């Protein structure tokens, strides 16, 4: 059916041209590899910058009506590193101005005898529209709550309650999931989304370049006059586009797995040694296979749509809806705990995401995997068939067809 020698010659030519095209090299190779180290540097720099900023913030606070019995609280507040006790003639105005962060008023308790000797209530006046003011309120409130606990502890001691009895029990947690399992959980949530984005990004330029781009460069007719069947040309282009897409996707997975630890560590506060981000070796062949199948599916869709375009720009417009549509199913799947069911196995893209997620966690539902592979392979075969059928129409080959995919289906396919 296909002349594989010709297909190889055509495929090599496509790849060679592609690797010299800056846009393709950037989108299919460089971006997947270097985006994450760059993101990492940005995050690291951003966090250290913000850290430097906020570390220096002392909350400027005014105290009014501090009860004499609570000298300790006053001393604690004055001694606190990030609190500066100030006074102001018009504290409300200063808070609005931003020159004072909070006013702390110590008031007698509400009407009636105080529940505890020396009890007071506090009113912290602040400006909720200012971060510094809000931070000041929380700092002061936190000190007062600790003070309350301290006072209650002292009262308990006076009442003969041992501190241990007051503490009653201590709560701890233990996460028995291994670092590897935690890493796999996070990878399973994040990787599929990024994989699909990268497969689509890596695919888009080559798909448009191989179809609309050829027309724009007027090399399409040159190619049509060569001594090889149309089917070989279509197959070679298809394989080339799918290759670029797969390369982008696989490079991205690798880069993400390698840099995930460093990216997440400053954000989650966990030490880097806690989690291990590694995909089980046994899962690699399956992940590779489904990635390639998905790349073939996306390549097929984009090429079919782009083949209706006469210029690169037109091609982009035609492919964009499909490009965005590939992300949508994955957005719905971002809930952890979704079960992989036969129904999901029948939906392209969704099924691959589920296989991927489970494979990362070392779980294999073989019947569902088989359904997934069958569905994806069927989609790929359909795309190839459709592409070859489209190119049978002469106005397509000459690039004079002025419609789009919808119009084509209406006129040429459904009319029959």
């Amino acid at each position, binding site marked *: 059916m296909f002349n594989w020698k010709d297909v190889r010659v055509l495929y090599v030519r496509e790849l060679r041209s592609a690797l010299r095209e800056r846009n393709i090299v950037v989108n299919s190779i460089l971006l997947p590899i270097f985006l994450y180290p760059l993101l990492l540097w940005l995050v690291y720099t951003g966090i250290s910058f913000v850290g430097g900023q906020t570390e220096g913030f002392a909350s400027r606070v005014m105290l009014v009506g501090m009860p004499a019995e609570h000298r300790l609280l006053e001393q604690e507040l004055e*001694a606190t590193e990030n609190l500066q006790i100030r006074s102001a003639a018009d504290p409300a105005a200063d808070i609005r101005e931003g020159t004072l962060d909070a006013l702390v008023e110590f008031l007698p308790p509400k009407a009636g005898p105080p529940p505890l000797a020396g009890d007071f209530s506090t009113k912290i006046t602040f400006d*909720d529209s200012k*971060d510094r003011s809000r931070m000041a309120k929380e700092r002061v409130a936190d000190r007062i709550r600790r003070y309350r606990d301290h006072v209650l502890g002292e009262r308990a001691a006076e009442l003969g309650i041992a501190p241990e009895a007051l503490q009653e029990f*201590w709560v701890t947690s*233990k996460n028995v999931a291994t670092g590897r399992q935690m890493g796999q959980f996070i990878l399973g949530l994040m990787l599929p989304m990024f994989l699909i984005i990268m497969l689509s990004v890596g695919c888009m330029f080559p798909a448009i370049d191989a179809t609309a781009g050829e027309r724009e460069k007027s090399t399409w007719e040159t190619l049509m006059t060569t001594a090889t069947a149309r089917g070989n040309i279509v197959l070679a282009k298809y394989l080339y586009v799918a290759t670029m897409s797969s390369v982008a996707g696989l490079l991205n997975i690798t880069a993400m797995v390698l840099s995930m630890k460093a990216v997440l560590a400053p954000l989650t506060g966990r030490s880097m040694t806690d989690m291990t981000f590694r995909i089980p070796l046994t899962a690699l062949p399956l992940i590779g296979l489904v990635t390639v199948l998905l790349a073939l599916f996306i390549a097929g869709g984009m090429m079919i749509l782009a083949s209706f375009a006469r210029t*690169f720009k037109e091609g982009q417009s035609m492919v964009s809806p499909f490009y965005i549509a590939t992300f949508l199913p994955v957005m719905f799947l971002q809930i952890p705990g979704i079960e992989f069911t036969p129904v999901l196995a029948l939906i392209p893209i969704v099924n691959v995401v589920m296989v991927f997620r489970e494979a990362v966690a070392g779980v294999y539902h073989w019947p569902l995997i088989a359904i997934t592979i069958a569905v994806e392979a069927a989609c790929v075969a359909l795309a190839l068939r459709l592409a070859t059928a489209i190119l049978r129409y002469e106005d397509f080959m000459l690039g004079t067809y002025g419609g789009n995919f919808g119009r084509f289906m209406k006129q040429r396919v459904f009319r029959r």
Partner: protein
Amino acid sequence: MRWATIRVLWAHELRMLVRDRRTVVVAIVLPLVMMPLMLYATREMNERRRKGLEETLYRYAVTGTEAAGVRALVAGGLEAVAAADAADPAIATLRKFRCEEIRVDDPAAALAAKEVQFYLEGLSGAEADTLPPEKEAAKDEEDAAAEAGPEAAPKRESVLVDPVRLPGVPIVRIVFQGDRDSSSAGRRSMRDLLAEARRAGRDAMLRERGLGADPAAVFKVGESSLASAAQVTGSYIGRFLTLFLMMFMLTGGSVVAMDIIAGEKERGSLETLLTTAAGRGEIVTAKQLAILTVGAVITVIQVANILVYVTFKVIPLPENFVLEAPPKTVVTLLLLFLPVAAFVACVLLMISAYAKTYKEAQLYFFPVYLVSLVPPLVAVLPGVSLRSIIALVPLANVSVAVREIMVGRFDWPMIGVVFVAMVAASAWTVRQSARMLSNERLITSGGADAADLAGGPALFPRHVLAWYGIMGAVLFAVALNVPQLATFRRQLLFNELAIFTLFPLLMIGRYRLNIREALALRPVHPLAWLAILLIIPSAGLVGTGVFRLANLVIPVPREMLEQFSRELLPKGMPIWELGLFLSVLPAICEEIAFRGTLLHGLRGRFRPAVLAIVVGLIFGLFHVALFRIIPTAFLGVVLTTVALLTGSIYPCMLAHAGNNAFALWLGMSGRNTGAMAWWVYAVAALVLAGGFYLLYRVRTPYPGLRRNASRQP
């Protein structure tokens, strides 16, 4: 400037765009359709997750010597929650927590088999005392403290410290599986329930023993915000408003911008336009207006889109969300956004003018888009005030001003400064984009020159920055991810040898460069060495002064500085090794990379003064950590200037080695250059100037530098 001509051109651009139906559909219709879908998907997803977790009946097991006590605690917690004030949001959430104990023989196995979401292990006080001090033992209490609010660090020995477990106190350990969402959620709810149980238990104990008060009612903390709901809403929206508007303008404007010059160049119609009676300035103005119009229209459509979704509650709003937009606010915002829009339009036009083809323009758009979004992010930072140097930084100044205006604060003098600064920035970009259209090299598309045909050394200047970009990415990616390079020595060796030496050699081979020229291996006037001896210590001191100045603007976290010092001067390393790794090796390898191939590649692109700054800056960026960039860039500028004046890399190597050795000596002898008086830095600056003056007098200029203003085509 003939406005009639501009109007004709502008209308022509818009007409062409409107007839490109596909582009219009993709730019307008597609986002209108996609956005609700995505928002709906996100909302659905969050809702489902929340509901799923809420409606789950959490199965748990209880084990351990204190199992009975644990069961009583759980029961007590449930009672306390039922009796507590439902108005408290934390209590309302806990009331939805449904749990059921399952009796199992092996709770750990049951957890692994998903028969239970978590289990509780009760350890007696004695058992708990024998446990090793796990990090995790204190974790929950730390977590709770962290959630309570940012802790203010005590200056002295404080009594208000974090609670610790007292000896003899039993432990309730919640064992869960962190890689399962329901297990993590169950653990959080159980922890809160137990906290409530303990609070209730403590309060009951106190009351029983005679505390004549409800413990929950003492020392109550109340709060009162002076800001109205509208101001609070304004502060949230205000910090992101400029960022979002810039995103819409950039993506909206790019619809027409990428094609407006680059596409026309490709099609050959730009040359046709340039042969008409319309002036270059008029053409540029018309194109800018076209980009501005399209960008503004798309922005308005997107904003209206969002408002529609807000009205129909597709986008859920937080409670107390009150948006007020009095005329004064709206007019001021519009006035500030106009120059921003003009600036964005000009930047897009410049991309299109610089690129040779539509595809190339798109390639440049992405990084420019990312970089442009950074200045508006300044408004997100706490504590950045309009009354600071920020008022002069384009885009950042507008975002901070908008944040303050949205809160109702109109600092008119500073708003005026911001407006003028932004208008000046826009005017500059307008001028630059007009000049680009006069540059013949940029007007005509394609066209090969001898460099392209011949390849080799002539191509190197065009590719040099890309090579250094790749070097930077490799340095960063490898350093952070390869565990074998985790030690200081190995990482330094890798950076110096594999990156700073190997890459330049690769470049020399690939582009067939003459190694002597590429690495500036030239002899030097004898007196130049004397100048270097003056420069070494003075540059080091001045560099410290620069660092101190920089620290005022970009304060560095103390912890980071300390960590860096520890890494840089690892204890126990012999002096000769320190000297080799910190002085000699960087001096040789980094000079090869920066004052060698990089300087050689960029020598014709910039004027000498700018060249020194560019090479110095790149040198600084390779030192990665934010706080090192500025002082290292300063050193880089000094070393590059030495190279430009001597035409040789050898003095730079000596200066670099000397500088590092000097810093090392100061560090090891405990001298704190960061605490010196300002006059010390001033004297050092004079000595530095003297050194450069001497170099200038005996100069052998670096060959092949760009001399006059016009660039070689």
